[in-house]
């Protein structure tokens, strides 16, 4: 358990550039809050969805303060619509700013996706076209968000089920260019990478060769499920409700072997199992981190 902390020297120099410790975290679910708060040492950091803690007052904010006190905190936004056609929602930026000011999080992250259009919020991370006008729009939005929020953000790669014929950029090059232009870091979701590679017949190795791994400030692992599309072909869905698959653990090991140890988050948003089940997954991640660390020392 302590291996991850005793081998600091092999961590990439910029591991956790926004301050998350290079260990294992968990996406915090309400059902597990009290058990984890009773023994915060079970995980090295926690991640919350920003939109779940935007209350004006009341017990939700008291809980938030306890969480921020107990761990390095990762605030993960799902509603900013960074890839949207429209300007960022100022009201939402204000709410994020309030949350960040209140908790001084170790990391703030959002998604390469859109979720709002013409005043409607779709409660999903919808795919963007990888073309130059979109790239420029995303860069403007991230610059605006980082300026307004006063933090460097991490941008997460999406899982997608459709690709647009209008896309002219490789997804990884698109992300790399955004990071270079805005100074933001990347949140590498290896489950999303695995899902998108499977669905679009991409190579994960090739994808990874297009980004500078030093930009990665956090890694997500999560589960996916397989369904059949209308043509009977298997489509992987980022369900966030399944155990982390073996290929995703393998991809994690590959990434940290190549790029160095990073803060790794076990993410589960639906069909929440007992905490003990999730802690088995965090243990698996720890074993991978320790294995990688020893290999690096040898």
């Amino acid at each position, binding site marked *: 358990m302590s291996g991850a902390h005793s081998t600091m020297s092999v961590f990439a120099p910029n591991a956790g550039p926004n301050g998350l410790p290079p260990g294992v975290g968990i996406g915090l679910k309400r059902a597990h809050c009290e058990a984890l708060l009773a023994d915060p040492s079970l995980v090295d950091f926690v991640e919350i969805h920003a939109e779940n803690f935007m209350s004006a007052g009341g017990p939700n904010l008291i809980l938030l303060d306890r969480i921020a006190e107990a761990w390095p905190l990762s605030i993960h936004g799902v509603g900013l619509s960074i890839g949207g056609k429209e300007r960022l929602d100022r009201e939402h930026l204000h709410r994020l700013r309030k949350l960040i000011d209140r908790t001084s999080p170790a990391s703030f992250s959002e998604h390469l996706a859109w979720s709002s259009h013409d005043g409607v919020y779709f409660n999903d991370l919808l795919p963007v076209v990888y073309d130059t006008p979109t790239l420029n729009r995303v860069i403007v939005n991230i610059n605006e968000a980082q300026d307004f929020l006063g933090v460097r953000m991490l941008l997460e790669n999406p899982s997608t089920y459709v690709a647009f014929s209008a896309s002219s950029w490789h997804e990884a090059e698109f992300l790399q260019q955004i990071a270079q232009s805005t100074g933001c870091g990347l949140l590498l979701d290896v489950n999303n990478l695995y899902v998108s590679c499977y669905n679009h017949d991409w190579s994960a190795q090739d994808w990874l060769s297009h980004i500078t791994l030093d930009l990665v400030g956090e890694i997500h692992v999560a589960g996916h499920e397989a369904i059949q599309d*209308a043509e009977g072909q298997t489509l992987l869905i980022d369900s966030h409700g399944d155990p982390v698959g073996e290929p995703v653990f393998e991809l994690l090991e590959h990434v940290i072997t190549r790029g160095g140890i990073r803060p790794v988050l076990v993410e589960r948003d639906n069909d929440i199992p007992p905490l003990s089940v999730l802690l088995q997954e965090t243990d698996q991640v720890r074993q991978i981190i320790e294995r990688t660390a020893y290999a690096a020392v040898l």
Partner: protein
Amino acid sequence: MQASFAHALLETDLPEVDEHGRFNVYRNNLRITLRNALRTTFPAVEKLVGEDYFSALTLLYVERHPPRSPIMTEYGHDFAAFLSGFSPLSDYPYLADVARLEFARVQAYHAADTHNFRMDSEASAIAALDIRAMLHPSVTVVVSENPALSIWRAQLEPDATPLIPDATETAIIWRQDDLVTEMLAHADDALLLRHFAQSQTFAALISEFPDDPSVATLIARFINLAIAGIIVPTHTPIEGEMK
């Protein structure tokens, strides 16, 4: 591109561009996550109409009233009005009131904090009568021509008191000591709730009818509502008040 994508997400018919049925994943995901959000906010309505009917209802609601904010606890603002206007359910007018009540409970949980009146002595209670006061930010009053509160309780609390079929009920929903609470309004509360929604002093209320014999009752009710944290001072505490 995003405009047509957004449009197709809410359309009932599948777009022709969806060659492999993959766009459908987004359409389904939208409906499932929003149904789940509504299910979390409206558990008693779901019990009353049944799980399948509720699912079908939410499909219609999602298409007609998609969310306008990324904060899912605010989704369902129009659900009660949608239920009132949904003609197949016109024989069940209490459903909309139960929905109002459930939505109010969620809003009460997230509402702003404020200071309460100190009501620990006769002197502090008398002092409170001259202090400008308002309803706690968590307060919603649900006026129902049906026994909506009793119906709601019967769905979620197995030991709830049996309801009186033709009763009308006015429920007050608010947050007290960090717990969302609800109670039946007393007959004299309506006047007080209306008055303090305008940020007034109690003295201003009774000055309108100083000789009315009901003033004593109103004072008693005011003190009750202030102790419960339903009526609170409008400004930061000074002597006579506390958090």
